[in-house]
């Protein structure tokens, strides 16, 4: 069962003899008890021939090794460099955790760089390209421009999202503040009315509360302020209301109904119930009639 041990996977449903099957199941039970069985499909792989010719490999290595100096080979073997204090994620040596894996490779490269650069500088090899050294690069300038644009785009989208989030928070805060102000105003109004009522009823002697009035700078006083967007009358809406509101047009409706006959709004009793009184001062200034004028005409001379 060597192949099973190395792979930890077992196949079901194969045509096996009963003896093999019981042995298989016993092995399975043991593996399960030991916690070696992983969830998922288990497959028995065919027995593979293992070749590990250690002696042959060692000999071959000796044969084809070219023992050149380090400067020709430039190879280094390192453990990963110690990570930054906040990034310690040891113990998560899983291949599938992309972030930790790449970080490990990065740190290995860093360790090599930290070791290699002093060694190179000791051998008088430069590692920094001088500013005026122009040579062909592995990637063209065009390509690098595209890379930069992509990075910029990403940065800008992040910034935009941040801005939108901030605006949204600000609006929420502003709304809350507005509500508080409205409530405060209502409360003050109520208190004022209460104080006036109490004073009128004689429960409160002092009239000091009038001194505490807020200055009327809050209310829009002049017509210009009143006709702001908030207070402007929508003429169109008014017209529509008159035409269609409260049951619609009255123009062509019935004229001689019970309600119209019983409608007394055009009747003013005061016009006919009044008793004759003193002629008012206006009456006194009125122009006299023709006969009176004729009589007085000759009298004036």
């Amino acid at each position, binding site marked *: 069962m060597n192949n099973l041990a*190395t792979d930890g996977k077992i196949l*079901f*449903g194969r045509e096996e003899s009963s003896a093999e099957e019981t042995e298989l199941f016993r092995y399975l039970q043991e593996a399960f008890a030991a916690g070696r069985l992983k969830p998922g*499909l288990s*497959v028995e*792989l065919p027995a*593979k*021939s*293992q*070749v*590990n*010719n*250690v002696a*042959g*490999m*060692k000999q*071959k*290595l000796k*044969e*084809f090794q*070219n023992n*050149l100096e380090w400067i*020709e*080979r*430039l*190879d*280094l*073997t*390192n*453990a990963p460099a110690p990570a930054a204090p906040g990034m310690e994620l040891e113990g998560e*040596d899983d*291949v599938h955790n992309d972030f930790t*894996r790449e970080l*490990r*490779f*990065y740190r290995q*490269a*860093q*360790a*090599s*760089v*930290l070791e*290699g*650069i002093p060694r*190179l500088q000791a051998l008088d*090899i*430069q*590692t*920094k*390209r001088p500013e005026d*050294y122009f*040579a*062909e*690069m*592995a*990637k063209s300038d065009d*390509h690098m421009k*595209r*890379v930069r644009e*992509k990075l910029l785009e990403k940065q800008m989208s992040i910034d935009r999202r941040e801005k939108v989030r901030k605006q949204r928070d600000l609006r929420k805060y502003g709304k809350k503040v507005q509500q508080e102000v409205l409530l405060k105003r209502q409360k003050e109004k109520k208190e004022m009315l209460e104080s006036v009522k109490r004073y009128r009823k004689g429960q409160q002697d002092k009239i000091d509360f009038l001194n505490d009035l807020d200055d009327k700078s809050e209310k829009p006083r002049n017509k210009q302020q009143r006709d702001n967007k908030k207070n402007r009358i929508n003429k169109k809406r008014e017209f529509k209301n008159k035409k269609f509101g409260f049951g619609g047009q009255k123009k062509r409706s019935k004229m001689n109904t019970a309600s119209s006959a019983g409608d007394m709004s055009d009747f003013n009793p005061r016009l006919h119930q009044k008793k004759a009184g003193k002629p008012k001062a206006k009456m006194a200034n009125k122009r006299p009639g023709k006969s009176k004028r004729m009589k007085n005409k000759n009298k004036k001379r």
Partner: protein
Amino acid sequence: KWTNRNRVLVFSSRGISYRGRHLMNDLRKLMPHSKSESKMDRKDQLFVINEICEMKNCSKCVYFEAKKKEDLYMWMSNCPRGPSVKFLVENVHTMSELKMTGNCLRGSRPLLSFDQDFDKEPHWKLLKELIIQIFGTPNHHPKSQPFVDHVYTFSITDNRVWFRNYQILEEDGSLAEIGPRFVLNPIKMFDGSFGGTTLYQNPKYVSPNEIRRMYRSRGAQKYVHRLNAKKSYEIRRGTGDNTYKSDPTDEVFVTIRPEDAEGRDKNTFFRNT
């Protein structure tokens, strides 16, 4: 001054995909000591490659073999008689991906950085030597640049070799990835170049064909599993002797107290108001 006359022949077989082709071109760009060759027909035997190498005066060879237009295999070999290794190439990312932000001089010499696991097993040691000789740019090569501004990392994880190429931005060790990136899964190591006795065979290697077959046969397992489950249920259920014989007429006059009623039976005693 240019003493290390190592030359690497980099080419592929026919039927290679665009990703494999770009990877090959990236390697050619990064290695100034490389020579290219037109595509080889896979019908020819592999030892023909040795002759091609001799004609081009190359001592090393990197050969990309593409099968089924999906799988990419890579051979690394020391041409006249040295060892050769066959890998399965996985997770290929080329240099022209926009997430690889670094850049380096074309033909500059790289630092080669190896994981400590490379010194632990003999097959890794052999592989390390081969990699150094292939990927290391010779000193004072006419097409090389005098500065060392990038580093190759070879690490061993999950029994595979992971390759990364970083640009050295600052002397204190800040790096940017240039690319390409690939993962090599070793299959076999041979004594001779593209042939010979097998020195090492990777026991954990599963060929991509087998993986695809396993995935496809998962559906077939459903039926077999169901049959097995039925069988085991029959076994567990027991035969006539060891089960308790229940008489259906026993339950006809069973009455329970109202306090003991549970769930729907409560409705027989209490009204839902």
